[in-house]
Structure formats: C-alpha cells, structure tokens
C-alpha cells in the first residue's frame, strides 16, 4: 500500500530565508507521526505545507498516493486543528462543526447525523448552541477536535492542540487523543514541542532543529539510540548525560576513561563497541546510572562517585555529581543511602550507552 503521506526533498523559503531544508518523511496508514523540536524550528510551517496553506519552494508531497504538491487545501482531504483552535467566533458550536460539510454541500440529514455522532463522541452535546466565546479552553479544544473529526479525512493535522491547556487537562486530553487514534485507526501528524507528549502519543517521531530533520524513528529508537547530540539532549527529562571521555582499546574491549576533578579517573570497559576514536562523548541516561543493588548483571560496571546534590522526587531520587567536567544526573531508588558530599558506589549500564563524536556530534555506535 502506498504511504498515506510522502514528502520528498521539501524546501520552504520565505524570501531568501530558508525555513525548511530537504525534508523527507513518509508515513503509513494508521501512523501517528509527531513533529517535535524547539520553538521556531519550522514545525508549524511544515504542517502548513502539508495542508497546502503555505506553498512549498521545491520538492514533492503526496497524500494517499496522489501528488498534492500544487493542490489547494480543500482538495487535499485533510482536517486540521490549530494551535489557537481558530473557531469561527460568530457561529455556534454546532455551526462551527458543520461549516465544512455545509460548504461542501453535504445534505442536511447527513450533517445532523454526523454532528450528533461527533458531539456524543467528544461529550459536547450540551455545548452545541453556544458561541466559542462562551466556552472554556478545554471545551474549545474539543470543539476544534470535533470540527476535524466530523470530516473523516485521509489525514489529520494537529498543531500543538494542547499547548493552551493547564497541566492536568493536558494529560487528560493526551490520553483522549491517544484513545481516539486507536479507535479511529486514523493517520495523524501532530506537532508539539513537549517531548513527553511526543513520546506518549507517537508511533513515529520526527525531531527537527533549524528547519532540518535530525532523526526519524519510534519513541524507543529516538530515546535509546539518538542519532546525534541534539536529539540526545532534547528528548528525555532529565536530559541524557553527555560526558566527555577518552578511549583506549585493548584485548578485553575498549576502556572508557572519564576524568574527575578530584580523584582517579573512572575507567569502564565496553566489550561490545570497539574502534571508537580516542575522544568521544559518552551518552548515558540518568536511569542507566543506578544503585548497584538495584541493577546487576549484564554490562553493568560499578564505580565510586562523589555525590554533590541529592534531589528526592518521591518515586525516584536524583543525584548530581561532577564527571568529565559536566554535571551528571543519576536516577536512584527513593530509599538510596546517597548523601551529599559522600562517596557512593554507582553502576553504569554500558549496554545502553551512546557514543558521539565531539566534533560532528553524530552517533558512533
């Protein structure tokens, strides 16, 4: 089957300003693609290009196997939810939802049936007679969603639909959107700059920076095997520890040497990854530095570390120390004995580390 959305070599300029550079993305039917990246990296612009609301400067774009590069938005068979919801202020909720069908000349009875169905699905029946100005943020969000759902399009586009909601509602709506996706089996492209939202919703994540794609992959690929330093740093909270280290190969494997301000360097031995350059940046997730009792076997190697700060968060306790000139965070069990200023034995899980080249920032293993 043809991919539901295929973007090839897409470039987008505003005047002489290059906003999107060589974008290549393809998703299959039923995929939930999430675009993440820092503010201003071009996520909304890319979504607008997919919708046909912004012309692209060069490249190709097809939806459902049909070339859509120069097709107007109304003929792309898409529905879009905007960051500001963009509800029509003078129309009632019901009119907002049916406007698209009315424009397309869908007959009255079908309109009513679809409206009733969507209103029931989103639990907005009591709101149908109101104007958008008389709704709360969460209710507006639902109406905006309803306006998209009623269309039954090939592709849904969402531009940060949850960013205006408070934290609690955001988590609730996130779950609802996920349920909606599973129930509808629809294909979606979803923009966010919240990486937790990205991880929880996506079947496929596109990480962008400065108009360029940094990595495309599943949540676990992005999380466990970031393609470069930017992705490693951007995805995950607290961020991945990126520690400058020196390597030396010998018969048993590669010795990884991490300098410390006071005391001997930590030396770990990686038996899998060989042929690393002599200078690398070692990427370790906080949860891959743990109490030795909690984490045993595998590639785990223990080392003594001097703890600077202890931050209990309830379920876990984060400890911060200085390694290789960087602040390094480890995620320990909440009942850990670690104390600030004291030495603590910590286990590094070498089976899950990443190596990056310091100059190019690219992944080495």
């Amino acid at each position: 089957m043809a991919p539901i959305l295929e973007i090839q070599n897409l470039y987008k300029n505003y005047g002489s300003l290059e906003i999107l550079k060589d974008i290549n993305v393809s998703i299959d039917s039923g995929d939930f693609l999430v675009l993440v990246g820092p503010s201003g990296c071009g996520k909304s612009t890319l979504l607008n290009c997919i919708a046909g609301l912004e012309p692209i400067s060069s490249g190709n774009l097809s939806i459902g196997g049909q070339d859509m590069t120069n097709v107007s938005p109304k003929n792309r068979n898409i529905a879009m939810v905007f960051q500001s919801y963009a509800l029509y202020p003078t129309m009632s909720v019901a009119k907002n939802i049916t406007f698209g069908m009315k424009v397309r000349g869908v007959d009255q009875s079908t309109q009513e049936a679809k409206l009733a169905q969507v209103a029931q699905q989103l639990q907005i029946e009591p709101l149908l007679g109101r104007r958008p100005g008389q709704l709360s943020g969460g209710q507006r969000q639902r109406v905006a969603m309803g306006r998209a759902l009623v269309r039954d399009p090939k592709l849904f586009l969402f531009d940060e639909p949850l960013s205006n909601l408070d934290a609690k509602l955001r988590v609730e709506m996130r779950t609802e959107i996920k349920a909606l996706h599973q129930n509808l089996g629809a294909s979606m492209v979803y923009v966010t700059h919240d990486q937790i939202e990205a991880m929880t919703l996506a079947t496929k994540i596109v990480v962008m920076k400065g108009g360029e794609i940094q990595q495309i992959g599943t949540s676990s690929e992005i999380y466990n095997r970031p393609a470069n330093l930017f992705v490693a740093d951007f995805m995950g909270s607290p961020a991945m520890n990126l520690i400058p280290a020196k390597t030396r190969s010998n018969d048993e494997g590669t010795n990884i040497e991490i300098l410390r301000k006071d005391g001997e360097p930590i030396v770990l031995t990686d038996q899998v990854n060989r042929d690393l350059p002599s200078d690398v940046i070692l990427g370790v997730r906080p949860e891959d530095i743990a109490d030795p009792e909690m984490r045993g076997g595998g590639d785990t190697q223990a080392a003594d570390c001097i703890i600077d700060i202890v931050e209990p968060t309830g379920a876990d306790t984060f400890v911060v120390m200085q390694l290789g000139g960087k602040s390094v965070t480890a995620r320990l069990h909440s009942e850990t004995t670690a104390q600030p200023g004291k030495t603590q034995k910590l286990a590094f899980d070498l089976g899950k580390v990443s190596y990056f080249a310091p100059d190019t920032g690219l992944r080495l293993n």
Partner: protein
Amino acid sequence: MTELVTSPARGQSQAVRVLLRWSLYIALGFFVLIYLMPLFVMVTTSLKSLEEIRTGDLVALPRAVTFDAWFTAWSGACTGIKCEGVKPYFWNSVLIAVPAVAISTLVGAINGYVVAQWRFRGANIIFALMLFGCFIPFQVVLLPMARVLGIMGIAGTIQGLIFVHVVYGIGFTTLFFRNYYVTIPVELTKAAKVDGAGFFRIFWSIFLPLSLPIIVVTVIWQFTQIWNDFLFGVSFSQAGTQPVTVALNNIVNSTTGVKEYNVDMAAAIIAAFPTLLVYVVAGKYFIRGLTAGSVKG
C-alpha cells in the same frame, strides 16, 4: 494604604477631590454652552418671524413660534431663478450619499479583507498607496477628476458624483477595515480554507458577521463626509443634480432684498439633520467600533 493615612489628611484629600470634580464639571459645562450656543440661535431664529428677528434680540426665545420659515426653506426658498426650496436638492443628496456610502463601504471591506488576510506580493505597497490617497487634498483632484468624468460620460450627473465619492472614500474605508481585520488571527482564514471555503465564502460567512462595529464606524464616517461635501458637489454637478449643501449656499447667497435669516437657519438645520440623526442613532456603536480591537476566538 488608606488605613495608613491619618484622618485630617484624608479629609483634606477628600475636599481637594470634590473641588477638582466640580471644576471639571464647570469647565465641561462651559464648553457645552459654547458648543450649543450657535445651535440654539439657529433653532430659535428659524422659529421667529422676520419682523421679530429685525426688532428682537438675537439670543431671545421667540415670542410667537411660527414654522413658516421651515415650509419656505423646504419647498419655497429661491436658489437662483428657481424657487423650490431645498427639497429636490435634499433628495439629490440622498441619491448620492446612500449608494456612495454603500459602495465605498463594501469595496473598503473587501479591500481590507484582502490586504489584511490574503497577503500577496505587493500587498503592503498597494495598501500604502491607498493610505496615501487619504491625504490628497480635494482641490488637487478636481481637474483630473473632471476630465475622467468627461471621458466616462457621466459629468454633471448623480452617478458622476457617486463615482467621485466612492473613489475618494475607498482609501479611508480600506484603512478602517484593514486595521480591523488585521486583528483577526490568520488561522481563522486557514481553518476555513481547510474546511473548503473560498475567497468570498470566507468573507461572507466569517468576516462580515464579525464586522458590525467597523461597518458602523465606516458608514458614519462616509455618510458625514459625503453628505457634508460642498466642493465636489459644486464642481461636478449641474442644474438639477446639485446636492443640498450647494443649494443651501445658493439660498443664503441669492436672496435679493431683505435677508430671510429664519429661512436660512431652517434650511441649514434641514441640511444638517441627517448627519445629526446618524450620530444619535449609531453614535454608541461609533465609540465602540473605534475602540474595538481584538476578537475573542
């Protein structure tokens, strides 16, 4: 804060506040008097007989109220050789002002919508040029306009005057609507495009229903401008198509013998009446429209 202020000081500040308030009222009252004085004189004079005007006091109330001057002004006063009052000219003004206001408002709305929401290459330049049009003095366009009207074959006609007022008004109406529509988020247009609506559909279904305040502002502005216009009216009309302002001028200037001040005053009030009415009826929207900015989504 108030708890900290000692009571004598508070008493004093209270007194100062009352004093300030009263001086404000007195100042405002004074200006109101100055403002209303001419109107008062006009109304009272129009209700007096010529005899009373000649013998009486300018600011005195009429001893015997008579509407003779009003009837004469409406249908009997002489404008040059004809003595039909302002009535036919009043209707000329209506025939000029109503279509000219309607057309210039509608065109301004569409222009403003395009410039604000359908940003195309050169949109800013076009808007700047239109804005520039607002600052061109009437006198500058008289000769070129006369030529254009001649070429179009509508010189001296009501249509010609409508055309002149529409052309001259578009700069202002575009400015009004553009400034109103730029405050409306472009995402609204984008959402409607995704919903399948086209240029006019979006204008008609989404922008026009939002526009009542700015339509009122524009209509009041345009109506006042066009109704009160004298220069275009006197330059581009001929016998039979003159607007009421020109007729008023002729009545006041062409009376021979004794000057009929009461008729002049009545005619002037009649000529000014529609603009007064528009302000009274729609003034509240006018203030609201001028201050209205953002539209809540």
